[in-house]
């Protein structure tokens, strides 16, 4: 059980980072885990930063177990401020780790606090809890891309969209 409830996870659960819904945003999503009722409302604000798409803010409100709530906090720390490419890579690494049934331990240097969720992979019923906020972010980010000013001027975005879709 200590695998699952690592101190980092409990810290994020008690002191969530980035919580609360904020303006501005391009897209807001509501995701639920229908088997247990965990819920999250999440907003994404993307900015065109001199031709590079950046995750200017991720804001959220939710209710659920320690795993889903701590995961939302870690997601905020991992994704807010990153370029969209970096954020999608971080999502990919996180998803690969928690769905690996314990095969992939995760790399602390690239993943930071998110590696604490490696233990979740051994508890199949909890993987959905950990993924809920991340997949909500992905959904909102994909929706946001249609509404970012000067978005159409960035040819590389088409490729990012495809890569993002393939993660789902």
């Amino acid at each position: 059980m200590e695998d699952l409830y690592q101190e980092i996870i409990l810290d994020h659960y008690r002191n969530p980072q980035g919580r609360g819904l904020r303006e501005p945003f391009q897209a807001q999503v509501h995701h639920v885990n229908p088997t247990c009722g965990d819920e999250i409302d999440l907003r994404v604000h993307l900015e065109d930063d001199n031709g590079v798409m950046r995750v200017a803010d991720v804001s959220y409100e939710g209710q659920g177990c320690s795993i889903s709530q701590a995961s939302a906090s870690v997601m905020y720390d991992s994704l807010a401020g990153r370029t969209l490419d970096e954020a999608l890579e971080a999502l990919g690494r996180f998803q690969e780790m928690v769905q690996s049934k314990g095969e992939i331990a995760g790399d602390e240097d690239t993943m930071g606090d998110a590696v604490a969720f490696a233990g979740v992979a051994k508890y199949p019923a909890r993987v959905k809890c950990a993924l809920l906020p991340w997949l909500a972010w992905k959904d909102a980010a994909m929706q946001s891309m249609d509404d970012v000013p000067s978005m159409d001027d960035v040819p590389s975005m088409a490729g990012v969209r495809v890569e993002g879709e393939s993660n789902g």
Partner: protein
Amino acid sequence: MSVAISPGTIDVRRVREDFPILDRSVRGGGRLVYLDSAATTQKPLAVLDAERDYYLTSNAAVHRGAHQLAEEATEAFEGARARIADFVGARADDVVFTRNATESLNLMAYAFSNATAKAAHGAPLPPGAERFILREGDEILVTEMEHHANLVPWQEVCSKTGAILRWIPLTPDGRLDLSSLSDLVTDRTRVVSFTQQSNLLGTINPVAPLAQAARAVGALVVLDACQSIPHMPTDVTALGVDAVAWSGHKMLGPTGIGCLWATPETLASMPPFITGGSMIETVTMEASTFAEPPKRFEAGVPMVAQAVGLAAACDYLDALGMGNVAGHEASLTAYALEGIADVPGVTIVGPADLVDRGSAISFTVDGVHPHDVGQVLDSSGIAVRVGHHCAWPGCRAMGVPATTRMSPYIYNDTDDIDDFIQALGRVRQVFGEA
């Protein structure tokens, strides 16, 4: 704890010998304490043996075939129906086999939407089917504590027919608030469908006054007995209702079989639900006519082995005595309620006393989400259920997003409850709440 346990109405040590799964270890060597029987019960060897014996000796497609095995299989299947019917005080012909109780309740719901759709363009209906034809503004009454299986099918009926769904609200301690019953049961009420015992709250509902109120306006009464038939003596014909749905796997039987009992007049007047082979009388390219109940509602090759297994489960429970089962559970429930009350920061969701209360006990722990409570208990080998228990509106009504639920049965004893209480006491420490 001060609760006096009535001595040995069930010899749990002896019973546990019939359930080898209870001897396995979990989570790295810990003893399994199975307290999730409201979700599904474990199966005794007698049930497993009966299924295996059927496959070893008599397996064949029932109700067809000119060979000895087919005869034996048919006899096993219809014999099982008679045994299961007898367990609930019914005639064999009034018991329909389904996949599960969800399908049993859908069978009732679809009788309404199918009859309404057929009547709209003059298609043939069985005599007496008028009571299943809904008009816009007709009302269907359920309760706020229903399992989704007794809620969503009725929502669907409403969306197909223009009927209106109404529900009986809950009191703060998780009982039906019957103060407005006379406003909720109207001359437009066509169905009243409710649970005899809540899977979320443990509440045992008063069947008689609800059934009487429904009957007074000519409404059909459907009872979800999933959480009652496994736990108390039941005579479905004495309940004053038109139909009763329950599942096999919550009463020691196999998965894949549920039952629907209904009065002969009710079954005879219902159009079919799932259609195809075995449920017909004659078939031409233009149209078909349908078999008498129960076969009208049993399309395709049925779940013979599961019926045989469920009949063996009825034998097993009757050998224990359903009165003894109820007494044993009442003792464990009293013991558990008192133990839980002594754990700081734990709140019962549902009746906290023993009046009209079954053995499923939902609770919350201050500052700790129900999922996390279940996970900590699991680390001590204690199997409980977490979440909304397929009764999401009931959770909302009780002001909780979810609960943790323990539900003992015939193979649990006070040692199991002690282990549960002890582990429950550790939950808040893990999360730094105590």
